[in-house]
């Protein structure tokens, strides 16, 4: 069930990347992603993807979990690749028979499609790696350090925490509807889903009321105070410098700015 997909259990496992300061991970991750997106060639994104893949294997992410995460982007990539291959370009590569007609595959389209696929994989690799070794509250803390709007962060942290609470209720409610045959056929499914959505919203509003009371009883005045971020350790500093250096070096080398 979709509800089960949302799990952050891996981000709490101890490993070398997990111990790294979240600010370093966020900065390196964002730089890597935007470098991948700005790349013109296939090589850089492919390299980044393999680095990310190595990282994921290093921290011991289960292969099934990784496949699950990559299925969605792969589907999108495939469609876009096909679109490009037939829509874009002017040099016919070959043609395929389809329903009695011939579809012409274009060379430029195939190249662009491949580039796109590499970019998606590279970006996704970084994103999945980042989120598998950084608990969300650390990401939010890092963003707070980088002066992200406080209101946004507070709402985000509240949302994240209570997704798990409301999710449990929602899953129970859905199961309860299911055992009373709420999801047999389209009409009943839709009806049950509509009610379920309503239940979820009412539950969340009631929860908000109770949570607010509990917050008041602990001195809440409308703003959640953030704790201080510790100073960057020398090791974190070195990691930051080194990984940014490697990224930029790779980028310059593969994008042809250094070696012509």
């Amino acid at each position, binding site marked *: 069930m979709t509800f089960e997909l949302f799990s952050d259990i891996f981000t709490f496992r101890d490993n070398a990347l997990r111990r790294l300061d979240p600010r370093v991970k966020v900065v390196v991750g964002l730089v890597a992603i935007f470098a991948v997106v700005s790349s013109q060639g296939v090589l850089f994104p492919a390299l980044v993807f393999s680095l990310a893949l190595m990282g994921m294997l290093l921290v011991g992410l289960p292969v099934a979990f990784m496949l699950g995460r990559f299925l969605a982007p792969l589907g999108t990539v495939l469609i876009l690749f096909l679109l490009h291959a037939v829509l874009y370009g002017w040099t016919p590569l070959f043609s395929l028979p389809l329903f009695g007609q011939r579809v012409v595959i274009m060379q430029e389209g195939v190249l662009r499609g491949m580039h796109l696929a590499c970019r998606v994989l590279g970006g996704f690799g970084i994103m999945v790696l980042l989120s598998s070794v950084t608990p969300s509250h650390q990401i939010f803390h890092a963003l707070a350090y980088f002066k992200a709007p406080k209101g946004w962060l507070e709402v985000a942290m509240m949302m994240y925490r209570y997704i798990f609470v409301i999710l449990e209720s929602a899953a*129970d409610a859905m199961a309860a509807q299911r055992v009373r045959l709420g999801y047999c056929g389209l009409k009943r499914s839709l009806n049950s889903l509509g009610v379920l959505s309503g239940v979820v919203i009412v539950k969340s509003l009631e929860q908000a009321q109770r949570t607010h009371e509990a917050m008041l009883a602990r001195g809440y005045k409308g703003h959640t105070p953030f704790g201080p971020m510790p100073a960057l350790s020398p090791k974190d500093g070195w990691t930051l410098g080194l990984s940014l250096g490697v990224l930029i070096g790779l980028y310059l080398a593969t994008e042809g700015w250094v070696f012509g």
Partner: protein
Amino acid sequence: MADPGFAVEAEGLSFSYTDGTRALHGVDFCLRKGEFTALLASNGSGKTTLIKVLGGLAKPQKGTVRIFGQKLGRIPRLKLYQTLGIVFQNPSDQLFAATVGEDVAFGPRNLGLDPDTVDLRVSEALEALSALHLRERAIHHLSFGEQKRVAIAGVLAMNPSVLILDEPTAGLDPSGEELMVRLLQRLNRNGGLSIVFATHSIDLLPLCADTVCVLNLGTVLCQGSARDVLCNHEMLKLAGLRLPYVTSLLMEMKDLDGVPIEGLPLTVKEARERLLEIIPPEILFKKA
């Protein structure tokens, strides 16, 4: 393999969540027709997962479940949930409609029954839980105990022959607990329903359960008659459970003080009988 005497029969169930958490590991469980079984388990022992697996709401990675001899996966949903009723722990997650009557009618209407039959089913189900007077009430005006009973009525209106309840007495006060146990007992004895009653209130069990199954950390530690299971003090302790208070009083007297008490009294009534056997009659007051 498929004994016709079993209402629910599970073999070698293993279940892990997609994030790798192992909830069940090689669980065997069975419920005979007409039996009242307590599923005794501490928090986090996999109880709720087991209920979901038995009810076809979660697919085990290993093992099979048979409902009245038929494999779970082969039973169409429409038929399955007319055989098997599942009541979850939190009533507010299972009551969706505005009024009690509407809510109980949700299931029967989904069966496509005609309005008169639906009406009849609703009355019967509410009647069986002594909640007929609540029929026109708004759900959010019910007390917690009433909500629990209405939630059961909603499932009962599907006319199941097996009822699986997750902590039906949790959160109830003593009189609510007593009422709930009495109602479930009536459903079992008079209505002929086979009942699985997941709980961790040990003092209530001996009053109603024929057999007890102890679940701990995703495995079944023990399944048998209430008396057999509860006499295994060590095993209960291992599972984060304890003896009923009355039993533990008499056990302590037997083991620590050497009072010769026969057997294992589980209820107040039994304990009283056992104790009277050894108290010399001459010291008793005269009865009025």
